[in-house]
């Protein structure tokens, strides 16, 4: 339990202020998304979502997330393991680099891949010769998404693993367990909820990312548009109901994420990183 102080008069004021700001900035706009999406009835809401381009956008979004989220999970566990369990030169530099995508504009995260793999980029001529397409294809979308979401899992695990210390793993090793068994039977069970938490946030961002993927997409409708890009396409096509219908899917994804996240925080707060406990 957090210690709480009572300040009569002021506390309710702050609560009211917070609620008002949340209402104006989050609940109201979110409501508008759904209101616009359903403004012409349920049939009109469903119709644009069953168009081939929309279905493709949904499928592509799922594919991109299905590739980039596991990659990030593996990277996150490896990075957290390295940072929390070992002492080495340049560790703080490594942690800074893991955090870099958080502080970098997503446009940059997209543009670097164009500069590397675009037709005029460093590897562009070689890739073209060998008929490999990265930019303006699914692989480019994955790269951009991976870069943007890189810190999510690692940031979740590092504080937790530092907190937990290496005692249990040391015990397992002394009892004769191998490295892999130790990881599988001791480390992983200890971090599983925090890992899930990180994966969840990573997934929400991966599916919702707009800036970075818009740079590498080329927005060929029905081919390289993910769901967030599809929202823009529809909006610019004057298909406002369709745009808000697609946006409502993204908003629902956010809400589902929120519910699972709250459940994890409520049920397993002890096993989430220190910063998440409350």
């Amino acid at each position, binding site marked *: 339990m957090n210690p709480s102080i009572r300040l009569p008069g002021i506390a309710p004021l702050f609560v009211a202020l917070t609620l008002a700001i949340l209402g104006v900035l989050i609940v109201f706009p979110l409501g508008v998304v759904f209101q616009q999406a359903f403004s012409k009835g349920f049939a009109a809401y469903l119709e644009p979502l069953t168009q081939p381009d929309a279905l493709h956008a949904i499928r592509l979004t799922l594919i991109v997330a299905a590739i980039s989220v596991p990659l990030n999970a593996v990277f996150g566990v490896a990075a957290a393991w390295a940072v929390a369990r070992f002492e080495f030169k340049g560790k703080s530099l490594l942690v800074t680099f893991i955090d870099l995508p958080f502080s970098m504009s997503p446009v940059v995260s997209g543009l670097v891949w164009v500069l590397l793999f675009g*037709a005029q*980029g460093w590897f*562009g001529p070689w890739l073209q010769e060998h008929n490999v397409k990265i*930019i303006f294809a699914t692989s480019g979308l994955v790269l951009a998404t991976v870069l943007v979401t890189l810190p999510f899992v690692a940031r979740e695990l590092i504080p937790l693993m530092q907190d937990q210390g290496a005692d249990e793993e040391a015990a397992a090793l002394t009892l004769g367990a191998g490295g892999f068994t130790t990881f599988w039977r001791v480390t992983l069970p200890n971090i599983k909820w925090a890992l899930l938490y990180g994966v969840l946030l990573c997934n929400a961002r991966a599916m919702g990312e707009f800036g970075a993927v818009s740079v590498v997409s080329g*927005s*060929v*409708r029905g081919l390289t548009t993910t769901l967030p890009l599809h929202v823009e396409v529809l909006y610019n096509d*004057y298909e*406002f109901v369709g745009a808000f219908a697609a946006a409502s899917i993204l908003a629902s994804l956010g809400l589902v994420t929120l519910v699972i996240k709250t459940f994890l925080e409520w049920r397993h707060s002890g096993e989430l990183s220190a910063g998440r406990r409350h």
Partner: protein
Amino acid sequence: MTFDPTLSRRRLIAAGAAVAGAAALPGLAQAQARKPLTLLNVSYDPTRELYKDVNAAFGAFWRKRTGQTLTINQSHGGSGKQARAVIDGLEADVVTLALAYDIDEIATRAKLLPANWQSRLRNNSAPYTSTIVFLVRKGNPKAIRDWSDLIKPGVQVITPNPKTSGGARWNYLAAYAWAVKQPGGTPAKAEAYLSALFKNVPVLDTGARGSTTTFAERGLGDVLLAWENEAYLSLEEFGPKFDIVYPSLSILAEPTVALVDKNVDRHGTRLAATGYLNFLYSPLAQDLIGKHHFRPRDPKALAKYGAKFRKLPLVTIDGQFGGWQKAQATHFADGGVFDRIYKS
């Protein structure tokens, strides 16, 4: 023009193959249903609805002629941005952009098509023309009749960013041409006029369609400088909330189309892509062009839809500005006139 012998030989062979392919077409079509083919048309912003119709029509035409299923994918955005994407490797089979300069850029920077591309199709490779008009709110409450009204205090003008949008460059040049042609007009005076105009612009979108939604859907601004086709489309989409105002003078916009040689040869789509571009000049496509409020080249289509296209004095990019290369270098390049006035 640079001349690369290996390139041109390859092109000759490809052209030969295309001719041979064309000759063999009917036989092949009957012999077997041919492998489905995909084309990518990278286009500018306001042609979304036009090419949806054109693609369906050409797909049907191609299927009937060859028995081959043809899917034509579309990508739309600000013309300059789209050209940049093609330069960076977006594998367009054809580009249909807002102005010749953007296709010149693809030819010079990425060498994907020859420098003389514009002479390969009729009418300067522009299957239709358009012009720049004003879209104002119903009843024209701010009484905007001509270019001079755009710099009045309290008038908000919506136009996209000339750095990324083709339509915005036509807007800008039309305004400039008008200012220069005023009694006692000089380049310096025109620059001062544009400077005043852009002080009235609250937001620069990257493409023409973004500006239209800013004006029509979000309700910002008193006047939208718009493609004529985009202005008519707004009347269609949003009902009678707007009026179109024709200024005393505007510019003849020639949006151009081109085959992207290196990409079609890599994809084996030269024949279909060439057919697609030629199809744009056909009576059927010209009719669709007129229907979507672009000014058709075909006299019959022009006669059918001509009533809505008001005749007004139009300057040309070659006559007034000495061609796109010069206009781009003077006005829109880094450190050009636009940078100067927009910073001031």
